[in-house]
C-alpha cells in the first residue's frame, strides 16, 4: 500500500468521493466558527480599533495564497517526474483557488490599509510580491487554457510553475531590497514559535487558518474530480467519433 496508488484515477475518485463530504463539512464548520468568533466575539485592538477583525480573513487567505502555489509546485514536480495525470490535474484545479485567495488577501489588505496607513495601496514589498504572485497565477491559468493538447499543457504549465516559483522568490527578495515597507512582520512566525498576537485574537485566527486550509482541500478535491471527469468525457467523445 503506497501513496502512489491514489495516482490511479479510479482509486483517486473513490477515495476523494469519500473524503469530500467530510472535508466540506469540516471546512464549513471551522470557517464559520473562526469567522463568527472573530467577527462577533473578539475585542477591538486598542490601536487599530475594529479593523483588527479583518485579520481573520486576511492572514488565512494570504497564507493559502502562498501555500497553494507550493502545492502546485509539488504536484507539477510529481507530474514531470512520475507522469501521474491526477497530479497535473490537481495543479490545474488548485490554480483558480490560489488566485482567489491572492485576490482576497490583496482586497482585505487594501481595505485594511486605508484607515491604518492612510492609503489603499502602497508599493510595499509584501503587497508588491502578492501582486506579482497574482500575475503568476493569471499567466499559469492562461497557459492551461491556451494549449490544446492536454498532456502538452500539463508539461508546459509544470515547467512554467517551476520557473515561476524561482522568479517569485527572487521577486520577493528583490522587492524587499527595492523598498522598505509599511507592512508589519508576520503575526504568526512558525519558525520561532513565538507570536505577536494575544490569545484573544489568536485562537479564532488559528481556527480560521485551519478552516481555510481544509476549505482548500475540499475545493481542490471537488475541482480535481471535475477535471478527471472532464478528461474522461473528452476521451469518451474522441472514442465515439473514432468509431462512428
Amino acid at each position, binding site marked *: 500500500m503506497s501513496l502512489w496508488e491514489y495516482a490511479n484515477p479510479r482509486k483517486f475518485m473513490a477515495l476523494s468521493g469519500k473524503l469530500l463530504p467530510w472535508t466540506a463539512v469540516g471546512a464549513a464548520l471551522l470557517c464559520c466558527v473562526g469567522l463568527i468568533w472573530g467577527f462577533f466575539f473578539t475585542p477591538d485592538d486598542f490601536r487599530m480599533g475594529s479593523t483588527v477583525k*479583518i485579520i481573520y480573513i486576511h492572514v488565512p487567505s494570504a497564507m493559502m495564497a502562498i501555500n497553494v502555489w507550493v502545492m502546485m509546485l509539488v504536484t507539477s514536480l510529481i507530474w514531470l517526474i512520475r507522469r501521474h495525470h491526477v497530479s497535473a490535474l490537481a495543479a490545474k484545479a488548485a490554480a*483558480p483557488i490560489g488566485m*482567489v485567495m491572492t485576490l482576497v488577501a490583496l482586497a482585505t489588505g487594501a481595505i485594511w490599509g486605508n484607515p491604518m496607513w492612510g492609503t489603499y495601496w502602497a508599493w510595499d514589498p509584501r503587497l508588491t510580491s502578492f501582486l506579482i504572485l497574482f500575475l503568476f497565477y493569471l499567466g499559469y491559468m492562461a497557459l492551461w487554457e491556451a494549449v490544446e493538447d492536454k498532456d502538452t499543457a500539463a508539461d508546459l504549465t509544470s515547467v512554467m510553475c517551476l520557473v515561476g516559483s524561482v522568479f517569485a522568490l527572487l521577486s520577493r527578495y528583490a522587492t524587499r531590497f527595492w523598498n522598505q515597507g509599511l507592512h508589519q512582520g508576520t503575526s504568526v512566525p512558525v519558525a520561532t514559535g513565538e507570536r505577536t498576537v494575544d490569545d484573544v485574537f489568536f485562537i479564532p485566527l488559528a481556527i480560521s487558518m485551519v478552516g481555510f486550509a481544509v476549505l482548500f482541500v475540499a475545493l481542490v478535491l471537488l*475541482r480535481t474530480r*471535475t477535471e478527471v471527469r472532464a478528461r*474522461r468525457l473528452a476521451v469518451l467523445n474522441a472514442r465515439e467519433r473514432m468509431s462512428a
Partner: protein
Amino acid sequence: MIDLGKYAADVVLAYCISLGLILGLIGLSIYRAKRMKADLAAAEARIEARQNNGT
C-alpha cells in the same frame, strides 16, 4: 449587533468582498462539478445504449 466603531464600513466591506469572492469560487466549482458529472453520465449512458444495440 456589536459596535464596530468608526471603521464599521471598512470591516463590513472587507468581509463582504472576501466572502463574496470565496462563495463565488465555491459556487462555480460546485456548478461545474455538477454539470460535468451530468455530462459524463449522459455520455456513458449513450455509449452503453449503443453497445447494447450493436450486440
